[in-house]
Structures are given as structure tokens and as C-alpha cells.
């Protein structure tokens, strides 16, 4: 059992003190008290990226683009920001919990879970293979530790996260619920039902992050169906919006701590996180083309050459 706690145990008073402290950290631009330095987190993220390309290569299917773009965020979340235990319990009572709504970027989720101790990293090799717990899209059906809901059909995770957050309130559990969504995913109407519901119902223990990479399957989001100003939209719906650079570890760590400091203030928090699809592998970067195809052997080698191995490959 591995226990991660970003700061102190999360009780309400300490929590409050800590929030203020976080906020000060944020404005000082120097997140403190982390178990890992920024450099260490960057190293972990590099390993996560290696895992992603190797997993996708191993089964010749899956979604490297969005996964790579979110590697820094997932590393920050699982290795620094969330108060969580890898002794997995479905109810997650007393800990921060995370939902992946854009389930197609499962490789980054699986790597973050394995690397932070939820299950053996060797199991990453089974990704998308018959009888694996690491299904193409995350599922509870195969009882993989760390997964609390199935996703893959887009647009459902925000609602689930709200429900989990409201359960925490009923349980007087002051920990936080995180959810990650794709930007293209926001075209699904169910999100807007949830986006309308959360502020009105003061779901302020929820931090939603948008993987704002400007890409979806058929092309750049602004060509397929532009989201225009997401900030304006979320604000018009009553959210507290912060922005961040999801591929700058310092910034994303800072933003997530700041977001946490905003919980409990009556509003849900939206972290509009700019990322680059395929980040970390030069020839995959910035294009929707690598949304959902696997590298061949050569491309794998070229990818790995750009990504230092830090925690040993599985």
C-alpha cells in the first residue's frame, strides 16, 4: 500500500488553513511542500509517456495523442495533488477521487495508476489484449484498481463526478472530486446539463479539467465545431474558471493546487488546461492525426528516443 498525501491529512480545519497556504503558494508562484520536486514530476511524466507509446504500439491500437498531452496533468494529479491511497476502495471515502470522462485516453490513466502503485506496471503490457483488465476504455467490469466508472462513450463523466461529489457532501467527506474531459467532448449536450446543474447546486468540491488541445478526430476543433471561448461559456454557466498550461509541470501543479484552494467556496471549479496533442513526441505533436493511431516499430523507436526512461520500462 502506498499513500500519497499532498500536504496534511484532509480535515476541515487543516484543509482551510491549507487552502490559504496553497493560495499563497500560487501567488508566490512557488508551490511548496510537495513530495516531489518539479523535476521529479517531469521525470515521472516522461516515463508515463514512454508507457503510453509502448502500450499503444504493443496492441497496435489506442489513442496516443490525447494521452501524451495529458501526461503532465495526470502525473501532477496522482503524484502530487490528490490525497489518495492506492489501497483501492470503490467508495473513495476520505480521499480525493478522479474520473476520466474522455475514456479513450486510457493509456495515460493506466500508466498513472500503475506507476503510482495501484497495480503492477507489468500489467500495462496487457493493454487492449484479450482477457485484460486494461480494456480499451476504462471499466470497473474487470475490477482494475483505481477505476470507479466505465467511460469511452463520451459526455458522461461530468455527471458521474457531480454525483460522486454530492455523495461526499452527504457523507460529510471533505475531499475533492476531479474529472478530466476532452474539449471535443464538450460538444456533447449532457455536459451542458451537468455544467448547468453543478453551480446551482453548489457542487464546490469538484474540479473539472478540460484537455484543451484544440483537436478531435476529424480535425482541429475550430474546423469541426468551434468551441469559441470556453471561458466565457463556463462563466456564463456560473463556474469559477482558471486557466493553465497542461504541458508545463510548474504551471499545472500550481494551477491544481490553486484550484483546490478554491473548493468549498460555493462554485465548481473549471481548469481550462491548454495542452498540445501528442506532447513529448515531436512528430505526433499538434495534429489530430495521432488522436487514435498506433506507431509502428520505427515510430516507436523515434518516440522513445525523445523520452528518457526514469522508472524503468515495464
Amino acid at each position, binding site marked *: 500500500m502506498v499513500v500519497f498525501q499532498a500536504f496534511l491529512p484532509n480535515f476541515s480545519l487543516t484543509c482551510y488553513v491549507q487552502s490559504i497556504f496553497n493560495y499563497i503558494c500560487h501567488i508566490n508562484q512557488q508551490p511548496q511542500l510537495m513530495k516531489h520536486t518539479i523535476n521529479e514530476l517531469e521525470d515521472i511524466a516522461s516515463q508515463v509517456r514512454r508507457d503510453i507509446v509502448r502500450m499503444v504500439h504493443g496492441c497496435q491500437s489506442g489513442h496516443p495523442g490525447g494521452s501524451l498531452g495529458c501526461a503532465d496533468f495526470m502525473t501532477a494529479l496522482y503524484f502530487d495533488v490528490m490525497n489518495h491511497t492506492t489501497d483501492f476502495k*470503490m467508495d473513495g471515502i476520505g480521499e480525493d477521487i478522479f474520473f476520466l470522462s474522455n475514456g479513450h485516453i486510457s493509456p495515460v490513466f493506466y500508466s498513472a495508476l500503475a506507476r503510482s502503485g495501484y497495480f503492477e506496471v507489468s500489467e500495462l503490457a496487457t493493454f487492449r489484449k484479450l482477457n485484460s483488465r486494461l480494456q480499451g476504455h476504462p471499466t470497473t467490469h474487470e475490477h482494475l484498481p483505481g477505476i470507479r466508472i466505465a467511460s469511452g462513450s463520451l459526455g458522461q463523466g461530468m455527471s458521474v463526478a457531480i454525483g460522486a461529489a454530492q455523495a461526499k457532501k452527504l457523507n460529510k467527506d471533505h475531499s475533492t472530486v476531479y474529472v478530466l474531459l476532452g474539449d471535443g467532448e464538450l460538444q456533447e449536450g449532457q455536459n451542458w446539463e451537468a455544467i448547468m446543474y453543478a453551480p446551482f447546486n453548489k457542487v464546490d468540491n469538484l474540479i473539472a479539467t478540460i484537455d484543451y488541445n484544440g483537436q478531435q478526430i476529424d480535425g482541429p476543433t475550430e474546423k469541426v465545431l468551434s468551441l469559441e471561448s470556453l471561458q466565457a461559456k463556463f462563466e456564463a454557466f456560473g463556474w469559477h474558471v482558471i486557466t493553465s498550461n497542461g504541458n508545463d509541470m510548474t504551471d499545472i501543479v500550481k494551477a491544481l493546487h490553486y484550484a483546490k484552494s478554491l473548493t468549498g467556496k460555493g462554485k465548481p471549479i473549471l481548469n481550462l488546461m491548454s495542452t498540445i496533442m501528442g506532447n513529448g513526441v515531436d512528430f505526433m505533436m499538434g495534429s489530430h492525426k495521432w488522436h487514435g493511431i498506433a506507431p509502428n516499430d520505427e515510430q516507436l523507436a523515434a518516440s522513445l528516443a525523445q523520452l528518457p526512461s526514469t522508472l524503468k520500462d515495464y
Partner: protein
Amino acid sequence: MKKYTYTEKKDTRSGFGAGLLEAGQKNPEVVALCADLVGSLKMDAFIKEFPERFFQIGIAEANMIGIAAGLTIGGKIPFTGTFANFSTGRVYDQIRQSVAYSNKNVKICASHAGLTLGEDGATHQILEDIGLMKMLPGMTVINTCDYNQTKAATIAIAEFEGPVYLRFGRPVIPVFTDPDQKFEIGKAWMVNEGTDVTIVATGHMVWKAIEAGEQLAELGIDAEIINIHTIKPLDEAAILKSVKKTGCVVTCEEHNKFGGLGESVARLLSTELPSPQEFVAVNDSFGESGTPDQLMTKYGLDTINIVEAVQKVMKRANK
């Protein structure tokens, strides 16, 4: 024919409302959600007693299913409430992924199912919900037959772990089952033992099957009547045992004849005991506006239709 009587008529949805309140009193983890139809779903008593355990979602059924799934993660037992159409077809993919495939302990409770919704017409009268829900692996599908059974079922599903679809209706109908019954999920209720024909009925059609049984008795036909309140998992043993004895079956449901209980029975028999079967069900059409009674007559779901189906199926079985 065993005698069934009633002293009052009530709507099955009120049985749900009463059951929900009692389930809520028994277990503090029971919570309720509604999509702007509190009165229709008879949730008022629950809300009054447990305001903090009620979630008003507004007109957003997809969000309701997702929130319910999320609530289970924190150990809650959510009961969602809206009309049957908006409980199933409107949110099929949400139920599929966030509830059924994720095996979440959500109770999807659906009122105003079938033709007896009446005047609102076809957009609201879903006749496909049993089929929709029965195709989902792991889903339990229940359609109760009167106030008491609905109340008992509501209490029972709160104690059962796993996703459930509970279907009930709008009109008042005879209350004829035991007020103190214990509801056993998946166990058919033998309404009347008989030897000539098996009548398998669910929901509002059970009382009509009893009426038909009485009329058939007068014609010298001894009908075995089985209430299949749980369509999934289907009590296959009960049906097979009965049809083995009678040799023929009539299925009765307030549903399209495609995809529903009737086809489940046909499948079962085709693999175990091929037998003549007749369907008392809507003949693959949408409903329309009208009073419940008018519609049940126009769409062939009346007592007389059961009687005629029995006569036809017995003839086919050379009886």
C-alpha cells in the same frame, strides 16, 4: 379459478411513492432523484421527510442517470424517477455505460409506462422499455401489477445490490395482492393453477388476465395464470413447468409485441419446449391520445383479447 377481489383501486406509481418512503426510512443510504416530475412520480412524501436526500435534477435525464451512478460510488442507493420513456430510451447509452456496464447500484424507476398513460399520446407512451432494459447485461427488469406489489418491489430493490429497472403506471387499477407480501425478485407468482393453457402476464395485464381466467372458467377452460413481475432474470423454470403441463401459452404485456416479455418467452420455449404461443401486446404501432380504457381496447389489450388468444392457442395446440 381462484377468487381475487379488491376493495379499492390505486395507481401503481403511488405504491412506488409509498415504497420509496419506507425504503428511505429503513436505510439512510437511500436517496432519490427526479427530473422535474416529482408529483407524477409520487415522490413528495420522501422529499418531505428527507429533503437533503433528494436531488432535483431539472429536465435533464441524461445528467440524472450520471449523477445517480456517481452517488453510488459514495455508497448511496439512488432511485431515479421520471416517465418510462425518459427513463429508458432517452438515456439508454447513459444507463448502458454508467450503470449497467459499470454495475452501479442504481434503481431506475419509471412511471407512466405503456398505453395507459392516456391522453398525452405516443411521444410519452413508450411500448419498448421492457425490451430496451432486458437487453442490458446485468440489468434486473421488473414490471409490477398493483399498488401493493409495487410498494413491496420498491422496498425489495433497495435491499438488492445491482442495477434495477422498475416499471409502473399512471391509472388507478384494482389492488388485489397481499399488502404484507414480501417481493421476491426473479420468482414468478402463481396466480392460479390450471391445466389447459398458461397465461403469462406482467404489469397492468395481470388483473386483465385474472378477469380473462374467470371468463374462461365459465367456458370450461382451466387457465394457469402466472405473474411474471420480473422479466429479467426470467423465472424460466416456472414457465417451462407450466407449459410442460398445459402445452400452450399466451403472453400479455402492455408493450410492443417485438422485443418484450412475449419474445423472451418465445425464445425460452424455442430452445427448450417449442409450443404454440399467442401474443397479447401492441401490434408494432405507436399509441395515441385517448383514455386508458379506450386505448387498451383499441390496441387489443383487453380481457376479451386474452380470452380470444387463449381460444386460438388452444385450438392450435389441438386442445
